[in-house]
């Protein structure tokens, strides 16, 4: 999209910086009167005057300029009642710690009542962002340069060509160089220049495609044909990227379903216990994450990792409590178990509402889980979902190992298949029940930890997933972990493939109806259990 920039202004900035860089003159930081004057100019009503004041700050030699602009952009540059300019360091709560804008000295806390923000509007905001970006092009910091170069795509015009071409020659990083030359090519293509169109051929970047489609509608027929050909050449590539993206969305949704359902696959599938409070165990896992983040302020990533064992433990303990207090008395009465555990789910929900809060809780996404992994200009995969997908697979593999390779797994399978026989072989069936239920519940807690990164952490979290997770287990075939994995992933993909075509609501309904019909056709799911266990 186009940003509203004054090109004259940008050039002035560029020129000023170039001069600065060339002259290498150290600015006189002690000159606070001049600085105060610069800031005074910002505190006016007219946004036009403010824009000029920003330009003035940029063109000044003051090395605090970037910090001021950043503070102005963030709304943290404020003026106290006595006319002093301050930068708010932390604007949560009612009393804010502030620092002097000129000297950077902390000034203690000030009340909101005593401060007036130096206001800006969206036009100024964009102006500031672009200005900071252009300043950053000359920054020694490579990341800043890369972001700036990216931002310049589609923003270059005739007057900026020269300075940017000069930069390309000086730039050492190939990525920044490539972006800058693309930016130039976009400008050229929009002018209908063949050189630009050729340079953009094969590019998947949306800005490049916009430039090409503009050229394709231009007057010059030769250039227009070339642009059309360039656009057509990436068409196929784009389609593949779209397909991969949809598949990724589907797998990601599927992994959430698998996580939510896999604990259920153990308690319901293996033990035959219907646990309607499963969703609430997930909710407890999510709240554990929140709690950990409260305990470790400022370290959301560490807290998240620690929540994995903690969430497992909390949910497993609550699961054991449920098993001991209610479920053991309802052995062999699955429908009654369903009702009783539903009651427990209501109690747990209300407990969270009363003890913690009916409001959703804030769970922070750590830095390393934000953003996207950029595969190419048309395809990027969100990292948080990738982490969840990987986590789901790890949990699944872990469970498979436990069930197949450990003594516990062997005993669980034995008790499931023939309780009396297993007991007569010396297996303590009650202990196995408790451990199995703890395992299934703990996995629900893990699902909750993962969900805290994707959705709201609130009392209703579990309710939103319980029906879906039962559907996945039943669809996959009760008692079969592989079935749960395949069912979850495939339902996720089906849902995401249908969604653009049918809309989110209808896609969900279609999937539900599909499962209902499928169960009629194959009552035991995709992978029915065979042999004696199937008769239980």
């Amino acid at each position: 999209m186009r940003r509203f920039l004054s090109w004259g202004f940008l050039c002035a900035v560029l020129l000023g910086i170039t001069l600065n860089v060339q002259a290498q003159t150290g600015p006189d930081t002690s000159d606070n009167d001049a600085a105060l004057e610069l800031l005074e100019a910002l505190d006016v009503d007219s946004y036009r005057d403010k824009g000029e004041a920003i330009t003035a700050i940029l063109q000044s030699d003051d090395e605090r300029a970037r910090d001021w602009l950043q503070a102005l952009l963030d709304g943290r540059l404020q003026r106290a009642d006595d006319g002093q300019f301050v930068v708010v360091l932390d604007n949560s709560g009612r009393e804010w710690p502030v620092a002097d804008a000129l000297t950077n000295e902390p000034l203690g806390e000030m009340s909101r009542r005593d401060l007036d923000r130096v206001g800006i509007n969206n036009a100024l905001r964009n102006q500031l962002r672009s200005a900071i970006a252009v300043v950053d092009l000359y920054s020694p910091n490579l990341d800043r340069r890369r972001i700036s170069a990216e931002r310049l795509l589609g923003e270059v015009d005739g007057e900026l060509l020269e300075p940017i071409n000069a930069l390309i020659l000086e730039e050492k990083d190939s990525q920044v160089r490539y972006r800058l030359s693309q930016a130039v090519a976009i400008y050229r293509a929009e002018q209908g220049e063949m050189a630009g169109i050729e340079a953009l051929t094969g590019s998947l970047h949306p800005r490049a495609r916009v430039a090409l489609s503009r050229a394709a509608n231009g007057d010059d027929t030769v250039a227009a044909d070339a642009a059309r050909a360039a656009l057509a050449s990436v068409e196929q590539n784009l389609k593949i990227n779209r397909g991969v993206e949809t598949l990724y969305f589907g797998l990601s949704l599927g992994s959430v379903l698998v996580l939510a359902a896999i604990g259920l696959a153990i308690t319901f599938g293996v033990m035959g216990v219907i646990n309607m409070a499963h969703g609430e165990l997930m909710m407890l896992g999510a709240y554990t994450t929140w709690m950990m983040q409260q305990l470790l302020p400022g370290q959301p990533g560490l807290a998240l990792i620690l929540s994995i064992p903690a969430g497992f433990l909390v949910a497993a303990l609550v699961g054991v409590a449920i098993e001991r207090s209610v479920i053991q008395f309802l052995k062999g009465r699955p429908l009654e178990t369903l009702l009783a555990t539903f009651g427990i789910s209501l109690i747990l929900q209300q407990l969270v509402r009363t003890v913690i809060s009916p409001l959703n809780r804030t769970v922070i996404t750590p830095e390393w889980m934000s953003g996207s992994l950029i595969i190419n200009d048309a395809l990027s995969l969100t990292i948080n979902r990738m982490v969840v997908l990987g986590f789901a697979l790890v949990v699944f593999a872990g469970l498979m190992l436990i069930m197949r390779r450990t003594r516990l797994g062997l005993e669980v399978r034995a008790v499931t298949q023939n309780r009396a026989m297993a007991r007569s072989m010396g297996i303590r069936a009650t202990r196995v029940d408790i451990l199995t239920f703890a395992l299934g519940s703990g996995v629900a807690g893990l699902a909750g930890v993962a969900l805290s990164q994707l959705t709201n952490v609130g009392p209703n979290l579990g309710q939103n997933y319980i029906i879906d997770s039962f559907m996945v287990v039943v669809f996959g075939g009760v008692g079969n972990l592989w079935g749960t994995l395949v069912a979850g992933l495939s339902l996720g993909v089906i849902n995401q493939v249908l969604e653009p075509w049918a809309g989110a609501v209808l896609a969900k309904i279609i999937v539900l109806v599909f499962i209902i019909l499928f169960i009629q056709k194959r009552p035991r799911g995709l992978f029915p259990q065979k042999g004696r266990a199937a008769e239980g």
Partner: protein
Amino acid sequence: MNLKKQALLGLSALALSVSFHASANDDPIKVGILHSLSGTMAISESTLKDTVEMLIQQQNEAGGLLGRQLEAVVVDPASNWPLFAERARELLAQYEVDVVFGNWTSVSRKAVLPVFEELNGLLFYPVQYEGEESSANVFYTGAAPNQQAIPAVEYLINEVGIERFALVGTDYVYPRTTNRILEAFLKDEHGVAGDDIMVNYTPFGHSDWQNIVSEIRRFGEEGKSTAVISTINGDANVPFYRELANQGIDAADIPVIAFSVGEQELSGIDTAPLVGHLAAWNYFMSVDTDDNYDFIDAWIEHTGNEEAVTNDPMEAHYIGFNMWAEAVRKAGTTDVGAVKDAIIGVSVPNLSGGYAAMMPNHHITKPVLIGEVQDNGQFDIVWQTPSTVAGDAWSDYLPGSRDLIADWRKPMECGNFNVVNGSCGGSTATEEAEAALAE
């Protein structure tokens, strides 16, 4: 079933049971509060209950009304719509309250509306809604679409230079109506092409936004500056904003302007991905007036929670309550008929430094503010309408309601008066709508 006989019996019973109710002067004035305290809506509504209780307490400390004390009658409709109707009847028939402050969702208002009309009660409804309604018994202190949605879009077009709009909402009546109004407004008033408007609806509590966000991203990548107009409700917002941020869309690329995200909603989420996105309301907690600071201080004291936030519907109750109190003073009685007549034209201060007046169509005048989300969960006010805007019960941009007006003053006293054929009941508007559709 002999219903006729029942009817006769009932009539005689009515004759027997002539009300001897006469209020003694020292009886407290009963104020009904009809907000969900349990269930899914409790999150939003229970703070409104506390707000009204606080206002009542303040009024009592200031000597009450007409020399009488006020008494709150609180009932819990438990986020269940049929229960709303039942509780409304309980308030009016059983407790005989003089006025009711309540409701949040449109469906709950629709459920209680027949009860209020039948039993002639007074309801103050504090939430922004889709319009297309004006009842003799309801006062709408929240925003109609022309007091929120339309100014917000004008801001986007005129101040931000947006040319493409993605209208994304939860599938219920408020987003549907608002988006229809906006679509008509964009096409008719600003000549926006159909291709430049994208509409999408999702179910309540939708949590998987991957596809929709990537669609929005592609929609915004076609060379025109794009904005999202969000009428997404409640819980679905967090995953939506998170997905936007993760797919690399920030407020500078595609700003989202929301009509249902306020301070209260922000208090439960990680605001980092939202910073810079916009919201349109008639009040923000960050409004810089002394009245507002006093209100916030009183609220924090009332709740005993240092972190407590205030929001737009709370201000609406503040205005509604003061208007009602003013009207009672003016009428000298709490009688519903007298208060209804007296309240039209009443003007009380709002919290943003201006005045709110009750219009003849039972809507009020409000300023429209646009705020930008900050990392502290507050809004930075970046724009506001130069003067207040009067609420329009019937939208000018919908064929069915274009010719309708509401005026509850005598002699018109009609909620859907058709200005074309001059009758109350709006029967030709639809014929015209049909004709327009046939074209």
